[in-house]
């Protein structure tokens, strides 16, 4: 029996750290290295397997019985370490437990519900664009990518007005905590107590306004779908994954459209491309870069033998630019057929809030393209560093009204 990932298993060993600041600054050369080294690689630095090609990432995502989530979707193995917070009932769960909780959130965030909130989300996008046209020069991250979701999502959830400043910092902790025990993760968790306390409080039934997503989750207790103890943790999932992700998604779309003016003009000439422009930004930038799975048994994956209890790191971003799957993967093309990209994952754990994200992205880009002729980057964009999320900290822009 050879050691995990030893040369005998035929899996190439790579000496790269995909959670290092240098890597975050420019991940693309390393993504290529990871893809081209083989279908499955071994990363000595963190003693994990890695998959960076589309086919293998898709295969791992779609075999949850072999590549499980209940042992954590970060580096930490919940079988060996105590999780930093009580595990998620949906993200960090396997069937059959996952099937039940997933059904509840799918119902709360269904296409039917999106139809009901669409007009409200679109009106808020128009209002935001009005304000920005007044300003002309602003930070596209703080004043738009953050301000817009903050103006609708906490209300849609039914959160109290007080304390919302904890939301983005809490999400930042959650996504840093999927990473290895590096400085980003350690510092995030050390400073997380006030954010955790806020979130725990907000998840309680009495703190959620009637009619909101949060109240709808608690109403499922009355239907017998979940227990009263489970409901707050499911609300927590929306607080963890429903805001910062869309901030980075919208930020990615703005960064793309500002960098590629031909695509911006294309969108302006056909506003029905707004939804596709957002979706292509999710593929192109992959705001959620990585997730882990843990093997439940010895498995052969594309010729590589992986033992039981091994962590497998999926490079969603690299898969989304795998030339084996995508034509001209490094170009941002708002008319691309993006169906099948793994920016929202795939399979039973595919982002349950994807419809909210698309709706926010679509209505914001529509409002912007209708009113704005030109977006110019007027200063050096600054990157925000997180073990899982990729996005900017600031993007100074000046817009020209149409």
């Amino acid at each position, binding site marked *: 029996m050879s050691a995990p990932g030893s040369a005998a298993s035929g899996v190439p060993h790579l000496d790269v750290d995909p959670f290092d600041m240098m890597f975050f600054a420019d991940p693309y050369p390393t993504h290529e290295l990871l893809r081209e080294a083989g279908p499955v690689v071994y990363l000595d630095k963190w003693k994990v397997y890695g998959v960076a090609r589309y086919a293998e990432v898709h295969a791992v995502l779609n075999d949850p019985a072999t590549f499980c989530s209940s042992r954590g979707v970060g580096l930490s193995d919940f079988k060996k370490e105590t999780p930093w917070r009580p595990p998620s009932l949906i993200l960090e769960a396997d069937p059959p437990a996952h099937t039940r909780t997933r*059904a509840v959130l799918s119902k709360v965030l*269904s296409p*039917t519900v999106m139809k009901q909130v669409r007009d409200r989300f679109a009106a808020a996008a128009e209002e935001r664009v009005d304000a920005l046209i007044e300003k002309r020069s602003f930070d596209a991250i703080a004043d738009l990518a953050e301000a817009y979701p903050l103006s609708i999502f906490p209300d849609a959830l039914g959160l109290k007005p007080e304390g919302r400043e904890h939301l983005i910092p809490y999400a930042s902790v959650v996504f840093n905590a999927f990473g290895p025990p590096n400085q980003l993760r350690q510092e995030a968790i050390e400073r997380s107590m006030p954010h955790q306390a806020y979130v725990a409080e907000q998840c309680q039934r009495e703190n959620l306004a009637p009619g909101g997503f949060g109240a709808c989750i608690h109403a499922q207790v009355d239907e017998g779908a979940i227990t009263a103890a489970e409901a707050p943790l499911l609300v927590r999932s929306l607080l963890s994954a429903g805001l910062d992700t869309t901030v980075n998604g919208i930020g990615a779309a703005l960064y793309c459209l500002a960098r590629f003016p031909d695509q911006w003009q294309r969108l302006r000439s056909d506003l029905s491309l707004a939804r596709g422009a957002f*979706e292509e930004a999710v593929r192109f930038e992959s705001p959620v870069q990585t997730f882990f799975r843990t093997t439940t048994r010895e498995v052969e994956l594309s010729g590589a033998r992986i033992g039981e209890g091994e962590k497998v790191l999926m490079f969603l971003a690299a898969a989304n630019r795998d030339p084996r799957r995508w034509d001209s993967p490094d170009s941002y093309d708002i008319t691309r057929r993006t169906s*099948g990209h793994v920016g929202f994952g*795939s399979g039973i754990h595919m982002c*349950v809030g*994807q*419809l909210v994200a698309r709706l926010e992205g*679509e209505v914001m880009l529509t409002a912007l393209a209708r009113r704005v002729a030109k977006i110019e980057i007027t200063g050096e964009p600054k990157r925000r560093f997180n073990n899982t999320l990729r996005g900017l900290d600031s993007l100074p822009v000046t817009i020209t009204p149409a």
Partner: protein
Amino acid sequence: MPAITFIHPDGKSDRVETSGGESAMQAATRHGLDGILAECGGNAMCATCHVYVDESWLARLPAVADDEDALLDGTAAERLPNSRLSCQINITPELDGLVLLLPDRQV
């Protein structure tokens, strides 16, 4: 391999060859067919691969599952008794010749 036909709202039709075990949605997107968006990639989450099944074929399809039924309530174009999500229609040899009508919009 079985082939299926998609009819666009303007009456034009596209005949698509399927490959073993794929869904009608997968066959459509693999051929770059307009009119099927499939935003979620076939995970029964988004209701953007909506089709109307030609009446003569309706009874030959497997029943609508609960999750598909809930999603069909959220389709952009009107839900009709013959509405289905094409990602949930696996093309077996018995479905050779299946005719699916495309709605005027998916979002």
